C-alpha cells in the first residue's frame, strides 16, 4: 500500500475492526496463535509451530489459520499457544510441544474437545474493547 492519508487510516482501522467482529460473529475460521517471543522460541515454540502445520496438513484442514504473536508473559508455561475455535471458548495452552500441538489439532479443533493438562488462564482482561 502506498502512503495513507488520515481518511485512509481511519477506513483501514474500521474495516480491520469489523473484519475481526465478523470473525467473532460468523466464526468460520479457526485461529492458532503461537507465542513467539525470544522466550517462547527458546522454549521450543518453533517445534510446536511445525507440529501444528504438519498435523493441519495431514488432516487437510483448510480453514485453520496459524499465526505468531509476542510473549504472553506466562514464562513458566512456555511455549504458549492460544486456540480460537468457533463455538468454543478461546483457550490458552501451555507447555506445547509438537506432540501436544498434534493433540490440540486432533482433539480441540477436529473434535471440539479440550486437551487435558495444558490449559492456562488468560493473565488479564483486554483494555481495548
Amino acid at each position, binding site marked *: 500500500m502506498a502512503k495513507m492519508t488520515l481518511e485512509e487510516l481511519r477506513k483501514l482501522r474500521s474495516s480491520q475492526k469489523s473484519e475481526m467482529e465478523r470473525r467473532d460473529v460468523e466464526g468460520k475460521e479457526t485461529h492458532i496463535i503461537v507465542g513467539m517471543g525470544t522466550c517462547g522460541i527458546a522454549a521450543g515454540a518453533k517445534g510446536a509451530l511445525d507440529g501444528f502445520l504438519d498435523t493441519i496438513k495431514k488432516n487437510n484442514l483448510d480453514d485453520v489459520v496459524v499465526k505468531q504473536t509476542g510473549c504472553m508473559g506466562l*514464562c513458566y508455561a512456555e511455549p504458549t499457544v492460544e486456540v480460537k475455535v468457533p463455538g468454543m471458548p478461546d483457550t490458552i495452552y501451555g507447555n506445547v510441544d509438537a506432540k501436544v500441538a498434534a493433540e490440540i489439532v486432533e482433539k480441540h479443533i477436529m473434535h471440539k474437545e479440550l486437551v487435558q493438562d495444558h490449559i492456562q488462564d488468560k493473565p488479564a482482561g483486554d483494555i481495548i474493547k
Partner: protein
Amino acid sequence: MAVKNYILVCGGTACESSKGDDIFNNLLKEAEAQGVADDVQIVKTGCFGFCEKGPIVKVLPEQAFYVEVKPEDAGEIISETVIKGRMVDRILYKPEKGAKGDAFDIDNIEFYQKQYRIVLRNCGLINPEDIDEYIARDGYAALEKCLFDITPDQIIEELKVSGLRGRGGAGFPTWMKWNFTKQVESDQKYIVCNADEGDPGAYMDRSTLEGDPHSILEAMTIAGICVGANMGAIYIRAEYPLAIERLETAMAQAREYGLLGKDILGSGFDFDIELRLGAGAFVCGEETALLASIEGKRGMPIPKPPFPAVKGLFAEPTVINNVETYANIPAILTKGGEWFAKIGTEKSKGTKVFALTGKIKNSGLVEVPMGTTLREIVFEIGGGIPNGKKFKAVQTGGPSGGVITDKYLDTPIDFDNLISIGSMMGSGGMIVMDEDDCIVDVNRFYMDFCVEESCGKCAPCRIGTKKLMGYLDRFTQGKGEVEDIQKMKDIGEAMKKAALCGLGQTAPNPILSSLEHFGHEYMEHIEEGKCAAGKCKDLVHYKIIAEKCIGCTVCARKCPVNCIEGERKKPHVIDQEKCIKCGACFEGCKFDAIIVS
C-alpha cells in the same frame, strides 16, 4: 453428541491442596450421575492466579466464575449451571469494587486476575509483524489525535494529568521531561528510546518490543510532534536480535503506510527513526552514557546538569525515555490522562510490569496496577515458592536495588514506598529468594556484576565496587572481620554521594539494604564461618555420619572427582581435600547419612 459446556478446574498447587482433585472427581461423577457426561467436558487448568479465593472453577461458555468451591458443590454446579444454565449464586465471584482503596476503581473490569495490561496490551494478542493488527486495536489513533486534533501543549497537559512517571527506574515525571525539551529553542531536537535493558533478570522491554513494536514507534513520533523533533533513535542491545528484527519490520511497514517518514498522514510533519545497536554495556542504560554511545563515543556518563532534555544527543535538546514509558503513551492519549490517573496510587499512576523470576512457581511477566502488594504478586499471581520452601526475600531493582523481606510483604508497591523500605523500582526485575539462598552470595553476584560493568571513569565507583567485592569475597571464604561491616557501610555511603552516575551511586544499595535486614547472616559468615544456606562453598563441608551409612556406594559412584572411599557395606569417608562441594553425594544419599555443615 457435541460438547456443550466446558468446566475448568484450577489445577494449581494451592488449589490442589485445598481439594481441587476432589472437586474434579466429584464433577466427573455428578456429570455421569445426572446424565450429562457427554455434554460437558471437565478439564484441569494451570493456576488462575487468584489463589486467595481458591479453589476456582470456571464454567464456559456461561463464564460462571466460582470461588472457594468445595467438593460438595459439584452436584449443584452440574444441575444448575450445566443443565439449566443458571448461576450458583452462593459461590459466584463478586468483584469487590474499589478493593484497592479510593484510588483504584476501574469501571466494570473483572479484576480477579490482579493483572491489568496497559503496556502489554497487545503482547500475546497481535501478530507483531502485521501493522494492520496493531491498527485494528486502536493503533496509531493517538498519533492521529496528536497530529490533527490537539496541540503540543495539550499533549503535555494530558501527560501531566495522567501522572505518568518514567519506568526506567528513577520515576521522573514524563511530562516535565518533555516540557523541558519543548521549551528550548533549537533547530534540531531528538527523541531517543532507551532499550538498553541491562538488569539481570529483567526482560519486559525485550518482550514489549518483540510483541508490540509499533506502540514504541507511535509514542516516539508523538514525542516528536510534542517537542518539535524530526529524528528519533532507538538504542537497543545487539543481543536482542528478534526485537531488532521486529522493529525493523515495523519501521518498514510504518514508512510504507506513511506513518513514519516525510509528511505523515498528509499533515506536513516529518519524523523518522533509526536503530542504534549497543554492545550491551550496563552503563549505557545511563542516559548520558547512552547518548555518548549513539554519537559513536565510548559509553561513559558525564555530570548532570546540563540534562539531556536541554543538551543531549549531539548537544541538542533530547527527550529520552525507556521502552515501558513509551508503551504507555498511546494508551494514555487515546483513553485520556484521567483514565490513566485512576489506576495506581496517589503518587505513582498506572501499572508496572515486573519480570518475576527466581524461586517462584509461575515465573513470567506480570503487569499490575501500582499499589499492588508484594504478597499479591509473589503468592497469588506467582503462585508462591516451589517445593514447599520458605520465602526469604525479594530482590527488586537488580544491582541498584535492595531486598524486601517478609516484613514488607503487604506494602503497596510504588516508586516512593520501595525507596522508603530501602529498595527501588528499578526497571522491574523481581527475583524471589527462598531459604536456600544465601544473602552474602547473592550480593556477591550483584557486586561482581557492578565491578564488571563499572566504566571506570570515576574513582568512587571504580575503586568502591572493587573494594566492596573484596569484602564479600572474604566473607564467603570465612575470612571476614567484624570491622569490615562498618567499612563497607562507609564506602557505600561515600559512593552514594560521590559517584558520577546512577550506576556507581546505586551499586552499594544491595549491600546496604541487606546489611539492614540480614545483618545476622553476614555476622554468621564472619563470626562462625558458617553459611546456613550452604551456598558459600568454602564454608561448606559434606560429612558422612558413620552410624547412618550402610555402605551402599551410591555416593562414591555419584562423586565426580572420586573423593569418596569405603568398602561395600561399610561406612564411607569423604576426602575433604579433594571435595569440590558439588553436593551430588548429598542429593544421592537415600539414608540421610550425609550432612552439610
